[in-house]
C-alpha cells in the first residue's frame, strides 16, 4: 500500500506506537490489533478446539472398542463423527495455520504488522461465536448435526433436524473469518515486504500461505453458496438438491467438493512451508530446489480445482468424467513428489541434528508420504470403488491431516515457541510428546488401512465381528494419542508462564530468516523500521 500514508501515520502516532503501550487484562485481548496477540489467540483457540474435537474422537473410539452398542446411541454417534470432522477442520487445523500466519508472516517479510489489523481482530473474534453456535446445537431437540462433516443432501436437508440452521450460520461465520484472514495475508504479502524482499526471496512459509490465501478466497464463497442452498432447500421450498423439484442430490456433492478439495490443500500447503523452513535449519544446508518448491506449490493449487470429483467416483458419473478426474488426480502426485524429493535432498549431505521441531518434520515427511501413497491408490477409479467410504479412506486422510497437517503445526510450534515466549521449551517433555505421538498415531491410523481393505465401511457405530481385533488396537492407539497431546499442553503452558531457559534471538544454529534477527521473545512491535534484505 502507499508508503506515504503509513509514513505520515507513524510520524503522528510515533509516541503511542513505539512503546509496548497496550491495554491490560481482557481489553488487551478483545481490542487488540497486534498480529502477535491475534496470532496467539488463534493458536490457543485452535488447541482448545483440537482437544474438544479430540474428545469427540475418543467417544467414537470408545464405542468402537468392541462390537455391539455399549456407550452411545447410533444417532449420537453420527453427531460425534460430524462434529469431530467439522471442529477439527474448521476449528483446529485452519485457525492454527491462520495463527501461525499472523505471528510469522509479518516477521518473515519484515513488516510491522498485518496490513489490515482491525479486520484481523474481527476475523478472530467472530470464530469463537461461530463455534458457540455450532456446539450449542447439542442442546437442541434431536441434538447436533448428524449428517457427517460433508453434509450430503438430502440427509442434511429433508432428513435433518433443525440443528442444520445453526450449522449453516456457523459455517457462514467461519467462512467470513477465513476470507478476511486470507485477504489480510494477501494484502500484507503484496504490500508490506521489506525493501529487497522480492517474491523469490520470500521464505516458503510465506509463499505457501500466499497461495493458500488465494485458494481460500476462491472456494470459501462456494461453501457459503452450498450451505445457503441447503438452508433454502430445507426451509424455503427450493429444490436445488431434490429430484422431485428438478434438482439433483449429486449437484450438492459437486459443489461441496469443488470447495472441499481445494480445502484439503488449504490444510496442507502451509505445512509444506513449515517443513521447508525447519528441515534446512536442522540440516544446516539451504533448501534444495527453492524455485521448484514454489512452482510445485502453485501447480498443486491449480490442479486442486480440477480433481474434486475423485471424491464422487461411485455417484455414477459418466465414464469419461471419471477418467478425467482420475488422470488429474494422479497428476497431483508429480508436484507432490517433487516436494518430498526436495526435502530428502535437503537432508542429503547436510549436518543434521534432531531437535523436536526436526523430529516432527521428519515424521511429517515419512507419514505424509504414506498418506500420499494411499492417495494415489484412491485415485485409481476402478479400485476406488472398493476403497470408497471404507476405513481405508479414513486412514488416508488422517495420515494426511494428522501426521501431515497437525504434525507440521506441532513442528512449527516447537520451532517458534522460543521466539514467541522468550524461553526454551522443556526438551524432555517435548521429546516425550513426540515419541508418544509418533508411536500412538501409527497404532491409531495404520491398522485402519487393513480393516478398510477387509471391507469395514466408515461412519458406522457398530461392525461385524471379523473387524473386532483391529478396532480394539485402533481404539487403544486413539486413547494413547489423545492423552499424549496433554504433554504438549504442559509444554506450551510452561512456555507461556516463562518457565524455562531464556532463549537467545536465534536458538537454532542453522535457522535462516528475519524472524531470528529480532530478540526473543519478539517485542510487541517489530520492524517499525523496515529491515534491509
Amino acid at each position, binding site marked *: 500500500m502507499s508508503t506515504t500514508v503509513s509514513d505520515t501515520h507513524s510520524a503522528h502516532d510515533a509516541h503511542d506506537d513505539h512503546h509496548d503501550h497496550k491495554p491490560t487484562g481482557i481489553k488487551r485481548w478483545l481490542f487488540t490489533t497486534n498480529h502477535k496477540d491475534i496470532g496467539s489467540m488463534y493458536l490457543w483457540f485452535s488447541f482448545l478446539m483440537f482437544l474438544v474435537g479430540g474428545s469427540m474422537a475418543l467417544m467414537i473410539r470408545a464405542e468402537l472398542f468392541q462390537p455391539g452398542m455399549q456407550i452411545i446411541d447410533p444417532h449420537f454417534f453420527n453427531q460425534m463423527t460430524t462434529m469431530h470432522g467439522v471442529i477439527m477442520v474448521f476449528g483446529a487445523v485452519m485457525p492454527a495455520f491462520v495463527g501461525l500466519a499472523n505471528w510469522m508472516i509479518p516477521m518473515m517479510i519484515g513488516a510491522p504488522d498485518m496490513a489490515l489489523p482491525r479486520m484481523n481482530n474481527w476475523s478472530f473474534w467472530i470464530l469463537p461465536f461461530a463455534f458457540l453456535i455450532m456446539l450449542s446445537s447439542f442442546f437442541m431437540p434431536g441434538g447436533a448435526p*448428524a449428517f457427517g462433516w460433508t453434509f450430503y443432501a438430502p440427509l442434511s436437508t429433508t432428513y435433518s433436524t433443525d440443528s442444520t440452521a445453526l450449522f449453516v450460520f456457523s459455517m457462514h461465520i467461519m467462512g467470513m473469518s477465513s476470507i478476511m484472514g486470507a485477504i489480510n495475508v494477501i494484502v500484507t504479502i503484496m504490500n508490506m515486504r521489506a525493501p529487497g524482499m522480492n517474491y523469490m526471496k520470500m521464505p516458503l512459509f510465506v509463499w505457501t500461505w500466499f497461495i493458500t490465501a488465494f485458494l481460500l478466497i476462491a472456494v470459501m464463497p462456494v461453501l457459503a453458496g452450498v450451505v445457503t442452498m441447503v438452508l433454502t432447500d430445507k426451509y424455503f421450498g427450493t429444490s436445488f438438491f431434490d429430484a422431485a423439484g428438478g434438482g439433483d442430490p449429486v449437484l450438492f456433492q459437486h459443489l461441496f467438493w469443488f470447495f472441499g478439495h481445494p480445502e484439503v490443500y488449504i490444510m496442507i500447503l502451509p505445512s509444506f512451508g513449515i517443513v521447508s523452513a525447519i528441515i534446512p535449519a536442522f540440516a544446516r544446508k539451504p533448501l534444495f530446489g527453492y524455485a521448484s518448491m514454489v512452482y510445485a506449490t502453485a501447480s498443486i493449487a491449480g490442479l486442486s480445482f480440477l480433481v474434486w470429483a475423485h471424491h464422487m467416483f461411485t455417484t455414477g458419473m459418466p465414464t469419461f468424467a471419471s477418467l478425467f478426474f482420475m488422470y488429474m488426480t494422479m497428476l497431483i502426485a508429480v508436484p507432490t513428489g517433487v516436494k518430498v524429493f526436495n526435502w530428502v535432498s535437503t537432508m542429503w549431505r*547436510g549436518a543434521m541434528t534432531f531437535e523436536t521441531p526436526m523430529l516432527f518434520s521428519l515424521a511429517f515427511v515419512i507419514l505424509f508420504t504414506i498418506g500420499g501413497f494411499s492417495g494415489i491408490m484412491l485415485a485409481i477409479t476402478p479400485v476406488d470403488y472398493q476403497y470408497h467410504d471404507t476405513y481405508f479412506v479414513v486412514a488416508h486422510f488422517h495420515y494426511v491431516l494428522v501426521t501431515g497437517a497437525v504434525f507440521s503445526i506441532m513442528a512449527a510450534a516447537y520451532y517458534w515457541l522460543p521466539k514467541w515466549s522468550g524461553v526454551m521449551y522443556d526438551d524432555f517433555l517435548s521429546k516425550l510428546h513426540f515419541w508418544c505421538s509418533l508411536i500412538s498415531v501409527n497404532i491409531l491410523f495404520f491398522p485402519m488401512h487393513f480393516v478398510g481393505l477387509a471391507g469395514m465401511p466408515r461412519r458406522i457405530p457398530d461392525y461385524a465381528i471379523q473387524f473386532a481385533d483391529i478396532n480394539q488396537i485402533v481404539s487403544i492407539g486413539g486413547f494413547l494419542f489423545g492423552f499424549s497431546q496433554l504433554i504438549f499442553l504442559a509444554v506450551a503452558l510452561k512456555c507461556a508462564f516463562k518457565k524455562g531457559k531464556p532463549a537467545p534471538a536465534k536458538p537454532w544454529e*542453522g535457522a535462516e530468516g528475519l524472524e531470528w534477527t529480532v530478540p526473543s521473545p519478539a517485542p510487541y512491535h517489530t520492524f517499525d523500521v523496515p529491515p534491509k534484505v
Partner: protein
Amino acid sequence: MKVRLTSLFIGLVAMFTSAIASAGQGSQLNLTRGVTDISQTVYSLHMLVFYICVAIGVIVFGAMFISIYRHRKSRGVEPAKFHDNLRVEIAWTVIPFLILIGMAVPATITLLEMDDTADSDLSVLITGSQWRWHYSYLDYDVEFLSNMATQREQIYGRLPQTENYLLEVDRPLVVPVGKKIRFLITSDDVIHSWWVPEFAVKKDANPGYINEAWTRIDEPGIYRGQCAELCGRDHGFMPIVVIAKEPAEFEAWIQGEEQRLADAREEEERLLSMEMSEDELMSLGEQVYLSQCAACHQPNGQGVPGVFPGLAGVGVSVGDQNAHIDIVVNGSAGTAMQSFRNNLSMRELAAVITYERNAWGNNTGDLVQAADIHQFIQGNQ
C-alpha cells in the same frame, strides 16, 4: 539418543513392512480377490499400485534413513552447499509421470469394462430406503424387502454375537451364476450405496436418479456387503446378502417366489372379508412394528426427540384413525416417514396400525382390519 532415534525409525518401518507383507497373503487384512473377473482385475490393479508405492517408498525413505544415519552433525560432517540440480529435478518430474501412465493404462481399461452394462441377462432394481433394501426382478414378477436379521439383543449385548453379526438379512437377493446381472440402483429417501466387496460393485443409490452397475459371478455362494454411504441413524445396520445359485436352481427359486407372491396376493383378497381377533392383530402387529418401525420410533414407541416422533400417547396413534392409516400407507412427504403401501400386506398394515393404537398404554381400543385398509386405499384412488 540419536542412535536410538534411528533404530526406532527403522523398527517402525520394519513393523509396517511386516504388517503389509502379512496383508498380502490373502488374509483378512487385504482387499478381497472376489468372485468375478472384474473383482480379480481390481485386486491385481490394487496390488500393482501398492507394490509401486512400496518400491517408491523404499527408495525415498531409504535415502532419507541413509541421510539421517550418515549426515549427522554428531558424526562431525560438514554440510554441503548445493541447493539445486536441474538434471535431477527434471528426472524426478518425468519418471513419476511415466510411472503414472503405467498405472493409468490398466486402470482405464478396467474402468471401461466396469461401466459397460450392455447385453445383460437379468436386471434387478435395487432401491435403498432408511434402512433396508428393496429388490425387484424386472424380468419376473418378484419383489421383496430385505431387512437386517440380527437381533437387537445381540447388538445390545444381551445375547452373544453370532458369526454373521450385522451381516445377515431376512430375505437375501438371489441371483444366478455365470450370467451378466445388471443392477439398477436408486433410493426412496437419502443417498445409500450398494456394495458387495466380492463383486467389486459399489454404486450410490441416489433418490430420483437411477445408477447402473453389473456383475457376473463365477462361483455359487453367499456374499455379504453393507450400505456404504452415511444414510442416517441406522446406516450401520443395513446389510446386503446375495446368494448366487446355479442357473437351474435360480430358475426353480424364482418360479417358487412368483408362485408364493401370487398366492399371497390371492390370500390377501380372500382375507379382506375376514376379521382378525385382537390377539392376532396385536401379535402380528408387534412383529411388523419391530421389523419395520422400531428403528426410528423405537421399540418402546418413544421415538428420538427432535428426530423421530414418538407414538406412545401422542400424535396420530391416539388421534384420528384415518389420519393414522394415511400416514402409514402413504408416508409423510418431506420427512423420513416412507410409504409402506407396497412393502406390507393389508393384513400387516392393519395389524401394525392396531398395535400402535393399543400398545404402550395407548389403549384406544380401535381394531383396524385389512378391509379398512382396503377401503381407505380404494377411497383414495
